């Protein structure tokens, strides 16, 4: 019974999102804080250092942390405003339960736990262990990520655990494992400083990772050439040396053509290719027909620009290639990633100073969270859940029998599909708002309505949690000790600045109590986060993501340690592959053929326009936190559909006119923003908003066959102008859209 208990407006009225603003003179005590806590931003993978000001167990402000080496005090608007998630009127202060016809009512922890555990037991007895699933997220610390992996396998005994990293870095992870046998950005960002050429592809750095801009600008001050690949003129692209305005869904054609150009003009590092790589021949065979003309035809980028980019890349002595979701959110996301890696390997520019490559991990702990057994096919240390030796090692660490350890389960979107099929009947979620962030969210909603029992752990009642039977009031990032691993692979300390307010509890204590009530207390005996981390160190030992040599003290003393760090006297590894010993079975870096394939959905007469989605600078992912912070909402009050003037003219669309955008899955009405900064054949909608304002009403559930990432970045749509001009943006109240 996971339909909404009352009208959605009533739920929004009580639980928000409501916009939170600081008082006119700031919070009381900001001038004389009890404590100044050096920790990190709760948002993206940059994990910028920040100091939180605490007064009487409340976060009342922030101060830049000038000494932290990555950001040296720099922050983006989300970072500046992040302190406002504390002291928030929407904050859940006690557990609540669904009451039909009334909404949500307060319930005691004891009753909430009783109900939760009895429902888990009932469903698992009736339908089998795997009929109860778990969805989690990587805004969680390493400790919690590890705990969730163990909790699902050991306490819930389900194989169906997956996480929102499935919408984030899985294509990069799969591509990196194929090429290097290890999943981490190969370099830290200080290697950008003297790179001669930087390619940024599918990464809107200035909006999604603003503080990384500094490192790119720094390189440009030293003379670096910047190549940006994006269908839109994003802020980074405006001043770039070359902007490759790629047609969504054709990235691999571009990389293929560039690789062929490098081969044809012998801009290759033969020594590196011969001695340290494999698979070169079949990879270049796959692109032998990818001429510049062909690439221009497919990608829509002029051949002169592709050639210029290939020349720059080919001739450089040092370089850095960065990519993000723009190339990964595709039904061929893994192909795109290996296509990029092929360009890096062909020039041999890796494992050396200022020669770098990496995906820019999106979520706060997107890197660490994807290493510790948080995924349906993975065990801690980035081990393989189907590898007998790996299974045995982890079973021993956890004190269970290897045969009791579940095997590979379903991925996030597949869990939704399984709920539809009636195979999954129960769900526990934490740190995930799939109703906004998964594609095709009408389909997701009807899945939630089919669940027999859904329990959610969260600090706010997010859009998905409105469908829950029980919501357990959990903790914010600043309410628990722990570590995260930034996009650079730097393990850093998250500090508990305050304790959870009211009756809210830490996520960890909630999971531990459920585990205890499920009869597995002896496997979950941690006294604090550090004990969990110390078990994680052992569990990761010998795996590719080896944290064994990292301790809390070491992290604190050094302002972060880069994994792998296999022994306690190891200094960590800021730059990978200096030894040329790759983690693949043959010890070599692998070229992988990446032939161009069509996206999952192509334009046709009925749906003639390409739709792509992305983000804006003031919002973060599904907006559970950022749609509740007043100034961040006001910065981008509503999603608009970006349309090129030529397309607008063709359809007779005026600036801010309401336009219905429809796809085979759904439709939404958005004001038009007519701008020359987008391809003529493409429209763009940012996705952070819920309900009728959600771009993910439109996106498809097509998945990459390897990584199972959904294809958010390309689908076919039609435009239908409504003839009315949209009311002012602030009136739209899109942040709390039904």
């Amino acid at each position: 019974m996971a339909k909404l208990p009352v009208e959605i407006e009533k739920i929004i009225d009580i639980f928000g999102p409501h916009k939170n603003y600081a008082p006119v003179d700031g919070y009381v005590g900001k001038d004389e804080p009890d404590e100044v806590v050096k920790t990190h931003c709760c948002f993206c993978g940059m994990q910028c250092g920040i100091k939180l000001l605490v007064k009487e167990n409340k976060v009342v402000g922030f101060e830049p942390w000038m000494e932290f080496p990555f950001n040296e005090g720099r922050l983006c608007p989300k970072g500046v405003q992040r302190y406002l998630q504390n002291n928030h009127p929407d904050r859940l202060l006690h557990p609540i339960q669904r009451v039909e016809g009334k909404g949500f009512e307060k319930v005691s922890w004891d009753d909430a736990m009783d109900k939760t555990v009895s429902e888990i037991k009932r469903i698992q007895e009736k339908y089998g262990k795997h009929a109860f699933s778990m969805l989690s997220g990587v805004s969680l610390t390493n400790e919690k990520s590890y705990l969730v992996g163990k909790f699902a396998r050991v306490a819930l005994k389900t194989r169906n655990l997956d996480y929102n990293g499935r919408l984030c870095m899985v294509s990069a992870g799969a591509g990196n494992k194929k090429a290097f046998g290890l999943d981490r950005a190969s370099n830290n960002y200080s290697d950008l400083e003297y790179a001669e050429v930087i390619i940024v592809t599918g990464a809107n750095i200035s909006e999604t990772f603003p503080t990384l801009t500094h490192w790119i600008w720094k390189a440009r001050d030293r003379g670096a050439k910047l190549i940006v690949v994006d269908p839109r003129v994003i802020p980074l692209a405006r001043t770039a040396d070359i902007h490759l305005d790629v047609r969504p869904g054709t990235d691999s054609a571009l990389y293929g053509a560039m690789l062929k150009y490098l081969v044809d003009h012998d801009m290759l590092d033969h020594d590196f290719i011969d001695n340290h790589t494999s698979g070169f021949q079949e990879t270049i065979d796959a692109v032998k027909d990818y001429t510049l003309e062909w690439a221009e035809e497919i990608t829509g980028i002029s051949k002169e620009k592709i050639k210029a980019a290939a020349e720059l890349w080919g001739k450089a002595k040092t370089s850095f290639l960065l990519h993000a979701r723009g190339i990964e959110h595709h039904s061929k996301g893994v192909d795109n990633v290996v296509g990029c890696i092929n360009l890096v390997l062909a020039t041999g520019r890796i494992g050396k100073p200022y020669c770098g490559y990496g995906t820019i991990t999106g979520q706060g702990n997107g890197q660490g969270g994807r290493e510790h057994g948080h995924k349906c096919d993975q065990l801690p240390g980035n081990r393989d859940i189907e590898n007998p030796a790996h299974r045995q090692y982890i079973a021993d660490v956890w004190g269970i029998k290897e045969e009791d350890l579940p095997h590979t389960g379903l991925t996030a979107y597949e869990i939704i599909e399984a709920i539809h099929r009636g195979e999954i009947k129960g769900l526990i979620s934490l740190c995930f708002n799939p109703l906004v962030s998964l594609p095709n969210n009408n389909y997701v909603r009807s899945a939630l309505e089919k669940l027999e029992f859904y329990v959610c752990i969260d600090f706010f009642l997010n859009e998905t949690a409105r469908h829950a039977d029980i919501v357990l009031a959990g903790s914010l990032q600043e309410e628990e000790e722990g570590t995260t691993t930034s996009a650079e692979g730097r393990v850093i300390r998250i500090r508990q600045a305050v304790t959870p307010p009211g009756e809210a509890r830490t996520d960890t204590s909630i999971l531990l109590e459920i585990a205890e009530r499920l009869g597995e207390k002896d496997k979950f005996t941690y006294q604090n986060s550090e004990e969990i981390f110390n078990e994680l160190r052992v569990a990761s030992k010998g795996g590719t993501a080896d944290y064994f040599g990292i301790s809390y003290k070491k992290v604190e003393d050094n302002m972060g340690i880069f994994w792998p760090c296999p022994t306690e006297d190891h200094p960590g590894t800021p730059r990978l592959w200096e030894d040329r010993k790759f983690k693949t079975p043959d010890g070599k870096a692998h070229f992988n053929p990446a032939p161009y394939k069509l996206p999952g959905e192509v334009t046709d007469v009925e749906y003639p326009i390409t739709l792509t989605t992305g983000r804006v600078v003031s919002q973060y992912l599904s907006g559970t936190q950022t749609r509740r912070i007043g100034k961040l909402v006001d910065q981008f009050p509503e999603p608009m559909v970006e349309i090129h003037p030529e397309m607008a003219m063709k359809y007779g669309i005026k600036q801010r006119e309401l336009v219905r955008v429809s796809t085979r899955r759904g439709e939404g009405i958005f004001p038009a923003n007519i701008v020359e900064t987008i391809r003529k054949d493409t429209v763009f909608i940012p996705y952070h908003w819920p309900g009728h304002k959600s771009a993910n009403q439109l996106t498809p559930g097509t998945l990459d066959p390897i990584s199972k990432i959904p294809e958010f970045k390309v689908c076919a749509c039609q435009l239908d102008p409504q003839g009315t001009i949209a009311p002012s943006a602030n009136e739209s109240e899109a942040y709390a859209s039904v």
Partner: protein
Amino acid sequence: MKNKTFNTKALLVATLVSALTIVFVFLGSRQLQNFDAALVTYLFGTIFAFFGIVYRYTVWLQRPPTWMYFKRSLKFLFTGKIFAHLWFLGKESVQNIVLQKFIYPRSKYRWIAHFCIAIGCLSAFAITIPLTFGWIHFTLAPNSISIYEAHFFGFKMMDFQINSFMAFLIFHALNWSSWLVIIGSVYYLRRRLTNPGLIATQTFEGDLLPLILLIAISVTGLCLTYSYQFMKGFAYDFLAVIHAVTVIMFLIWIPFGKFFHIIQRPAQIGAHIYKQEGIKKGMAVCPHTGEQFATKLHIDDLKIVTKQLGFDFTHEDGTSHLDLSPEGKRSRLAQAHLKARVGGGNLFG
């Protein structure tokens, strides 16, 4: 700032007003028969303050932007629908001068504190100035030992029983003013000593001294009352001197320091009238953003005023940089910067 140090016009006006004041003191006190000789130091202080205020006010009015506002608002006030204009003036005076409503959104407590000070000070002025000038005096009613009469300009205004509540209110009126001023000033002093933003930007003579002065005047004034009422006149003479010194310092300080804002504040109403009338005459549209941003009158007047002040933002084609809205100006600067960057061969550098 392009201010002259000496201003003949202002000197003339100020002298005239001071002389007139003295004449009115003579008239109002019925040739000094109602004048209280004990207040003579206060009289000189007040007249000197009048001189200073008028001098400063006249200098101020002569500044091109001030004169423009002064001229325009008076003209608007007395042309067209004069009655409606006066009604607007009255309404604005109550809201802005009496109630100071614009402070309320900045902070409720700041508004309460300021209101206390303002009412305290204004009521004190209303009592002490006529008393000092001999315009008000109290006498026992003829043939009575229990009824007091109040006179203004020598004319009888009212009478009241000596032991009545009314008498209590009237004879202690300055005490009530003092308490209000103390409450407000202590709040502001505390704020100025604890708020980091204010600590960083305030000056002692500009911001702290005025508050200290207000508190000193009020406290010494109250002490005088309590000295003769409860302490048999203990240290009365000493207190009287201190009180007089603080009051005269305050009076002389008005034209030069923070307290001049009491005299300046009505100009706010002028600005409101100016804006309201300007809207009626039409809005200026920014050539960059294409949106209305100010009244056309305002922009046109500013072009005149800036030229009078020695600034000329006229382009060669006759248009002015001042035709642009603030956003337009920022954008044009950025475009010029972009052009310069492109001209330098690199967008980035």
